[in-house]
């Protein structure tokens, strides 16, 4: 057998059994929790310019189960922290984001896309309104340089000197605390009652004296919080969370969890050649106002698109993988963008693009798994919705 010596094979779209590269390259960035991950036995892999844990010794299945049934903790410090400030900050964000900043109240957060002039997705992001004139925006790790360059271009072009940007990625840490137990646990760990906070809002508190900015957000499909802390406090906060029983989880579990929840991953479901409408993310694109690519996106919304993202399931555990072909009566009609065995649903799941036709849920297509042709059933997304808890 040929093993996944390249960490890229864990995460990147095309599984290549012949591509070998060192597990960790020296020019990658390390988070403030790097030594903690190594001590915990985390398997470190390069991802988005950072060395990150893909899993810990108990493995991806155990980590996924912890998040679905109890709670897990993830170091997501590889993701960016950009502060956008100034009297024109709102106007600027209204221009560069598909979601509205001006209608976002202070204290709330919103998910949306950053598109280029052709409607292609430069990145997806959650942004938090901190004050009237100040926002925090979280880009993906690998896209941070592209987002910064794009934003700076438009600040210089249209919004200088009323808007400025500050990159706090390397001076802070971001820790995701996810799972059904987190509302109870967070109130035992943080000095403020955060469990009453609404989804997509934020509040501040402290953990053992360390200031914490907490958003009720996440990327797992579970209830939970994302905690922004100063870099020097990262180990203290991480340890407080794991001491409460939260299971350390890596990028492998994060990818399975987000896929079960039907959430897109940049570089897979979305990229600069894909629009939010094609990706089924039209609900995160506002229908009013002028912003980058707004006319094009509105015409796609009301008209038609060449390809459309679909979700599908197949029985068993042999997984669809990025790059595999979807077929209709032998004819290739699309490509898988992400897929996995879903431990929560005990079936295999995938997402992919289908060209030039409307595919209704329930439609049977074929999937080419390395030459084995197996039927798959198109289904509504998400695959998994967390049970309502009272």
């Amino acid at each position, binding site marked *: *057998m*040929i*093993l*996944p*010596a390249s960490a890229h*094979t*864990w*995460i990147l779209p095309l*599984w290549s*059994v012949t591509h070998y590269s060192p597990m960790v390259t020296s020019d990658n960035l390390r988070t403030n929790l790097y030594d903690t991950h190594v001590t915990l036995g985390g398997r470190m892999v390069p991802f988005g310019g950072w060395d990150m844990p*893909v*899993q810990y010794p108990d*493995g*991806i*299945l*155990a980590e996924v189960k912890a998040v679905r049934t109890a709670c897990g903790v993830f170091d997501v410090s590889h993701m960016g922290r950009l502060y956008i400030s100034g009297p024109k900050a709102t106007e600027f964000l209204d221009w560069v984001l598909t979601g509205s900043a001006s209608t976002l109240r202070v204290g709330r957060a919103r998910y949306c896309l950053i598109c280029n002039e052709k409607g292609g997705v430069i990145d997806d992001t959650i942004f938090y309104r901190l004050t009237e004139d100040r926002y925090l925006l979280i880009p993906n790790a690998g896209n941070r340089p592209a987002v910064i360059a794009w934003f700076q271009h438009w600040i210089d072009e249209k919004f200088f000197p009323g808007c400025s940007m500050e990159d706090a990625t390397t001076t802070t840490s971001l820790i995701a605390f996810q799972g059904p137990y987190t509302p109870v646990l967070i109130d035992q760990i943080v000095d403020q009652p955060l469990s009453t906070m609404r989804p997509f809002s934020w509040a501040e508190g402290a953990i053992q004296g360390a200031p914490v900015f907490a958003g009720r957000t996440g990327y797992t499909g579970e209830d939970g919080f994302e905690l922004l802390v100063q870099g020097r406090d990262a180990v203290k906060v991480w340890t407080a969370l794991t001491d409460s029983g939260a299971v350390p989880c890596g990028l*492998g579990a994060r*990818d*399975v969890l987000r896929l079960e929840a039907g959430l897109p991953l940049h570089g897979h479901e979305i990229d600069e050649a894909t629009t939010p409408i094609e990706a089924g993310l039209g609900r995160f694109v506002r229908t009013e106002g002028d912003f980058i690519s707004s006319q094009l996106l509105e015409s796609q919304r009301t008209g038609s698109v060449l390809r459309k993202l679909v979700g599908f399931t197949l029985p*068993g*555990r*042999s*997984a669809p*993988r990025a790059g595999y072909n979807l077929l209709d009566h032998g004819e290739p009609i699309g490509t898988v963008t992400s897929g*996995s*065995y879903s*431990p929560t649903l005990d079936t295999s799941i995938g997402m992919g693009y289908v060209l030039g036709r409307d595919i209704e849920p329930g439609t049977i297509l074929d999937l080419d798994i*390395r030459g*084995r042709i197996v039927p798959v059933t198109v289904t509504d997304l998400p695959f998994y919705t967390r049970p309502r808890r009272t």
Partner: protein
Amino acid sequence: MSSPDDRRYTQEHEWVMIDATAANTAVAGITDYAQDQLGDIVYFELPKVGDDVAHLGKMGEVESVKAVSDLFSPIDGVVTEINEKLLDHPELVNEDPFGEGWLIKATMADATTLDRLMSAADYDAFIAGL
């Protein structure tokens, strides 16, 4: 941990040993290093009883949550048995790769094939250098 020295190894991380319970038969699996690198195994595609397998020829596939790899046969031979338990419990290979998690048994066309494979000491040195 060091690999058991009662068997032989390939550079593709399969092991093979003489099966004490049947004449001229070998039993084969993947190594502890292999299962550790793959992570949680969820699926095996194995040859059928009666299939020919060829030394270092593809004989199946293994999938973990995040990876898929080809399985290569350590020997020339004909498959006499596959480990049926793996169909429902592929995690046996994570738990006990050198024992309960064996993959196939096969009659050997030429038992001297084993001499061309690595000893445990050589394999352990090989993976230490990866």
